[in-house]
């Protein structure tokens, strides 16, 4: 099992543009799965290419088990990449694809055959050795790509949005399969994704990347409940951030006074956020309630979504049951949490 440590990674593609990655430091504990979550252009795929060794950072160091791998070329780094496009070699059979890495190392025929069979069992596709890649479905192709990556017994497994081109049902079973295999093999894994649900469901830790900067590195539960900055909160689906003056456990906002209890700055200007499903709509005033006007109601299946206007703010509230003509939105004190402004966050880029 390998520990990955990234220190101060910076990578720029164009001289004048902001760097694709700026001063990213991150550690992945042996045998765990870290999800790199971010929108397109956040630098998450760049980070993966740097770890794989197909690109080199401008600054910073990448170490496996405390030893820098920057001098090690991609083909000797044993960091196997699986892409969104499975990149199965079309001129080889499934067996030929899975054995590719072993063949490059000069493994014997018997070793390759045994390993191919073992890998196909692992990805639950036994007996398809002789099939051609074009005969497989998208999900099967990704399973074969995974088998091919694992066949070289890599030190780290790098997954670059491997599920995003699959339809939801297949994606789900494959996510579960990858998680099971990753645990069985105990292989340190980096998963790049833009899908919040996928990151939360699969990862031991989630690293949130935004425009080349690391915003947060947390357990999924903690990141979901308490994103540390405004931007992180936004990326985790929090749309309500209220700015105000904090004094004696009370936040004085332009909309009204709210009691807060989460530990934040003692006094002075502060921003507090709250998840949409932790607000409540009410008909009568109560503590921490703000008067609102309903702008829109949308049925989302698992929940109803209300768009309400409170003073100058529009607030998105999720409710499990429809609420008839609510007049207030309640922001329970225990669910309000402080967020930093992003200017105070680690240096993102020289804008």
């Amino acid at each position, binding site marked *: 099992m390998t520990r990955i440590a990234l220190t101060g990674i910076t990578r720029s593609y164009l001289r004048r543009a902001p760097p694709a990655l700026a001063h990213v430091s991150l550690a992945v504990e042996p045998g765990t799965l870290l999800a790199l979550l971010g929108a397109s252009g956040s630098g998450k795929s760049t980070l993966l290419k740097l770890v794989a060794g197909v690109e080199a950072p401008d600054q910073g160091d990448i170490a496996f088990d405390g030893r820098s791998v920057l001098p090690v070329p991609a*083909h000797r780094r044993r960091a196997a990449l699986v892409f969104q*496009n499975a*990149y199965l*070699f079309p001129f080889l059979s499934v067996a030929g694809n899975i054995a*590719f890495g072993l063949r*490059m190392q000069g493994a014997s025929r018997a070793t390759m055959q045994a390993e191919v069979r073992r890998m196909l069992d692992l990805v639950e596709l036994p007996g398809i050795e002789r099939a051609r890649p*074009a005969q497989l479905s998208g999900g099967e192709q990704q399973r074969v790509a995974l088998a091919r990556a694992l066949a*070289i017994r890599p030190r780290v497994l790098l997954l670059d949005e491997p599920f995003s081109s699959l339809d939801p049902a297949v994606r789900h079973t494959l996510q579960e399969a990858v998680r099971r295999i990753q645990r069985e093999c105990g292989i340190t894994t980096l998963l790049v994704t833009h899908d919040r649900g996928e990151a939360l469901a699969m990862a031991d830790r989630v690293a949130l990347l935004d425009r080349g900067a690391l915003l947060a590195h947390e357990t999924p539960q903690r990141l979901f409940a308490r994103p540390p900055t405004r931007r992180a909160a936004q990326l985790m689906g929090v749309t309500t951030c209220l700015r105000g003056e904090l004094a004696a456990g009370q936040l004085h906002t332009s909309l009204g006074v709210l009691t807060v209890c989460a530990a934040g700055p003692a006094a002075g200007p502060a921003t507090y956020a709250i998840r949409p499903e932790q607000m409540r709509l009410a008909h009568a005033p109560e503590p921490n309630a703000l008067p609102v006007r309903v702008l829109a109601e949308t049925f989302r299946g698992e929940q109803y979504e209300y768009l309400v206007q409170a003073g100058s703010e529009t607030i998105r509230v999720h409710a499990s049951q429809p609420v008839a003509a609510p007049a207030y939105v309640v922001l329970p004190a225990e669910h309000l949490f402080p967020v930093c402004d992003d200017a105070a966050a680690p240096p993102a880029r020289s804008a």
Partner: protein
Amino acid sequence: MPDATHPPARRAAALLVRMVLGTVLLGPILALLLYASSTHWFFPQLVPAEWTPAPLLRQLGDPRTRAALGASLLTAGITTSIALLLGLPAARVLGLRTFRGRSLVLLVLFLPNIVPPLAIGMGLNVLLLRLGLAGSVAGVVLVHLVPVLPYAILALLGIVARYDEGYELQARTLGARPHQVWLHVALPMLWPGVAVAALFAFLVSWSQYVLTLLVGGGRVITLPILLFAAVAGGNPTSIAGLALLFAAPPVVAIALAVRALATAAGQPARGVP
């Protein structure tokens, strides 16, 4: 393969097209065969009175013919190899990268095919004379590369432009060393394009007359040179024999290429649900 999806009218049309194409393509070759295998064929006979492979065999046995065939195969073979070795990297850069001056490079590359070959040949002949390469196979190969290389690059560009370098990236992370990536990934992926380019390059070089004559200076006698000399001589049997020999490699090469490409194209499609 019986085809149930196409109505009879379409099948009939396809058959007609095949017959017309077949006649146009095979007709001249049949005529050459007739000429080459006849010793006595006088007016008003519709077909030769006597049929014998003897003249054709005699033609093949002629040391001058053999030497010309050898020279042609040698120059076309070397030219093709060099064109592929230079053309593949060039096509990769031109097809997969965008850089300033890319269109200018393309224009310069195709310029020799726009300018009349005689003009190029004259100019190059002066240069090659100074270099001491005029009248040698090396000189002929060099001058053949001028029209051949652009064709090879053009043929390779078609397949390289659709090539995804992700396959090479993938191979590298699976532990393939640079030369292994080239041998085990790039070459198999690009193979159809390389085959077509090789075919084009070989045929363009094979059919050069003016440039070979100018630079070869009568010392490098390739098949076209011999054929033109025979045409001037006016013996229809020997003209036909040489012409058949001259047409054989292109016909065989095209047939092989068509077969190879058809199987290559048919392979991934087979068995798809």
